[in-house]
């Protein structure tokens, strides 16, 4: 009994040692992932992308602006001048926050009329914007007192009032955020697995020799292998969406056909990436490991589990290279905000670019000989 177990043990050990890449990934991957996510993930969001809509040009307005810039919570990226501009920024996800300084604000403050400061938050990700709303009032008050030497307010009275407006998800329901996120991550996982094994399977079963001796080009093999799963992926997406709408009350405000089109693109991107892994991997185990290595950042750095705005810059750049990051913006944009193609053009282009990159790598790295 013991002899046979140890015979098996030694055999497995030898085989493991022969597969150098698998061996290396077993050591390297946990370490890389730990460092990567340990530093990148921050559940308390900072540097929320913010726009200020100036309805008047006043000294008070300017000090509010600089006051916001001085806090870690807000990253004032844009100064808008019209409602239409603000709408577009919110729909496309450029900013999560808009502070509107209404006309006559400065005068009203000086007169002690306690005017309203309008704040519009993109509540489609309630975690990201929730804590920042509280920080806003303090930051603005401090700025006004410091810069303008306004009379110190009497206990219990205020210089202004903050009028909150939560857009897209007024009740702050987390499901409205989670369901689109799940749509993206579930599709990513299943699509990657479908194609990640497709080339290695042919190699391991020996059918690659037949395939290579036939007059078929690598790009034809790739497209033929991806195509059936586009349909499968589309049906999967439909299933998740229908469940999301009927069980979790997710609204569909935007154009459903646009969503269908971009979902197909997203599915194709993931299938191409899976296929690329398949051409790079030497065997099925390696292909599966690459898939998981790629999948984890898709969950953690895409804005699905943790607010995108809260991550350090470098982690955001990694996030921008992941298809699900863009797809999340697309799904939230279309379902919750009614975004159109002009709002989502950059995300669509990013997906398209990622698809081209993956397909190019796959076609050029495809081994056309048995060397």
């Amino acid at each position: 009994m013991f002899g046979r177990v140890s015979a098996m043990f030694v055999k497995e050990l030898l085989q493991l040692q022969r597969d150098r890449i698998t061996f290396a990934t077993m050591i390297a991957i946990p370490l890389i992932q730990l460092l990567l996510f340990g530093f990148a993930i921050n559940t308390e969001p900072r540097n929320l992308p913010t726009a200020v809509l100036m309805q008047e040009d006043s000294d008070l307005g300017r000090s509010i602006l600089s006051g916001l810039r001085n806090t870690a919570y807000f990253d004032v990226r844009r100064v808008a001048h019209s409602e239409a501009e603000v709408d577009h920024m919110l729909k496309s996800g450029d900013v999560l926050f808009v502070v509107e300084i209404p006309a006559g604000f400065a005068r009203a403050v000086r007169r002690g009329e306690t005017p309203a400061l309008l704040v519009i938050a993109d509540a489609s990700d309630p975690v990201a914007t929730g804590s920042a709303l509280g920080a806003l009032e303090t930051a603005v008050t401090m700025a006004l007192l410091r810069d303008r030497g306004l009379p110190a307010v009497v206990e219990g009275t205020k210089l202004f009032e903050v009028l909150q407006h939560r857009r897209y998800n007024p009740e702050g329901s987390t499901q409205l955020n989670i369901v689109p996120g799940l749509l993206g991550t579930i599709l990513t996982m299943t699509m990657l697995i479908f194609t990640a094994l497709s080339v290695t399977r042919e190699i391991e079963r020996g059918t690659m020799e037949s395939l290579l001796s036939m007059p078929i080009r690598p790009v034809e093999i790739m497209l033929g292998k991806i195509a059936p799963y586009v349909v499968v992926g589309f049906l999967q997406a439909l299933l998740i969406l229908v469940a999301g709408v009927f069980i979790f009350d997710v609204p569909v405000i935007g154009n459903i056909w646009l969503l269908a089109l971009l979902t197909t693109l997203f599915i194709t991107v993931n299938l191409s990436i899976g296929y690329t892994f398949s051409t790079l991997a030497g065997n099925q185990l390696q292909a599966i490991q690459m898939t998981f290595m790629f999948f984890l950042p898709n969950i953690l750095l895409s804005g699905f589990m943790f607010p995108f705005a809260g991550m350090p810059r470098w982690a955001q750049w990694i996030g921008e290279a992941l298809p699900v990051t863009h797809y999340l913006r697309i799904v939230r944009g279309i379902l919750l905000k009614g975004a159109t193609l002009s709002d989502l053009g950059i995300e669509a282009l990013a997906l398209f670019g990622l698809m081209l990159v993956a397909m190019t790598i796959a076609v050029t790295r495809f081994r056309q000989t048995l060397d």
Partner: protein
Amino acid sequence: MNGDVVIDVQGLTKSFDGRVVVRDLSMQVKRGQIYGFLGPNGSGKTTTIRMLCGLLTPDSGHGTCLGYDIITQSVLIKRRVGYMTQRFSLWQDLSIRENLEFVARVYGLDKAKERVRTAIERLGLKGREEQLAGNLSGGWKQRLALGACTLPEPELLLLDEPTAGVDPKARREFWTEIHHLAADGLTVLVSTHYMDEAERCHEIAYIAYGRLLAQGTVDEVVAAAHLTTWTVSGEDLNELSEQLEKLPGIDMVAPFGTSLHVSGRDAEKLNRAIEPFRKDKRWRWKPDEATLEDVFIDLMSHAEDNF
């Protein structure tokens, strides 16, 4: 280009991990010929065939296959060559019909369904076309593989040990089929370990340890070896065999059923060596023609082993 030479390669060399597997190999195969490719295990037959159809890139050497350069025009070669792999490499989880239809579509054949139907009939696979290829017995798998590589009507067939593990009747049918195809102008390069199959080829090449050692018709190859052979019959052949093997002038001693083949490349030395044994009453000595097998075993034992 000479229209009658289908395979024309010079100086093909290929090594894996620094070990030379095919060394400076040159060969010509004429149109309509059945060309046998023989050699011991690991001698580089499969490697050579793969280089011919563009599945492996030679380290050095050059040549043409069907008039196309084997290095730069492998795409054109693949369209006109049927390659039957040594190990069954069609899709085990597809049925016979599905496998053949896939091949027909990849080659862009017109009337694919109809061609597949006639191919199935011709191969005697009718009635089993829906059976999964993985469930076929060894011999039927070979038949399917041959059907798949002849389906696109290639000009050249490269068959890598197509009859390994096939029963004698099926083997004979297989060779009849090959001769029919060759009569229609198809060229066939076939590797094999069977002597009887070698004798059915128009020409043969013998490769050992990556080197081409002999080439020509069977008679030419046998003649070029200059082997003198004696057949010995009688009792205690094992004892005789042990004694003879050690003697100078005797290059090969091989048992053949109830007799023994004794050969040497130098007739005089051979005769001198067997002189004392010919007087022994236990054995009857008879001068004989060297067989192809004698020649191959002799070639092999003198080729340098590079393992």
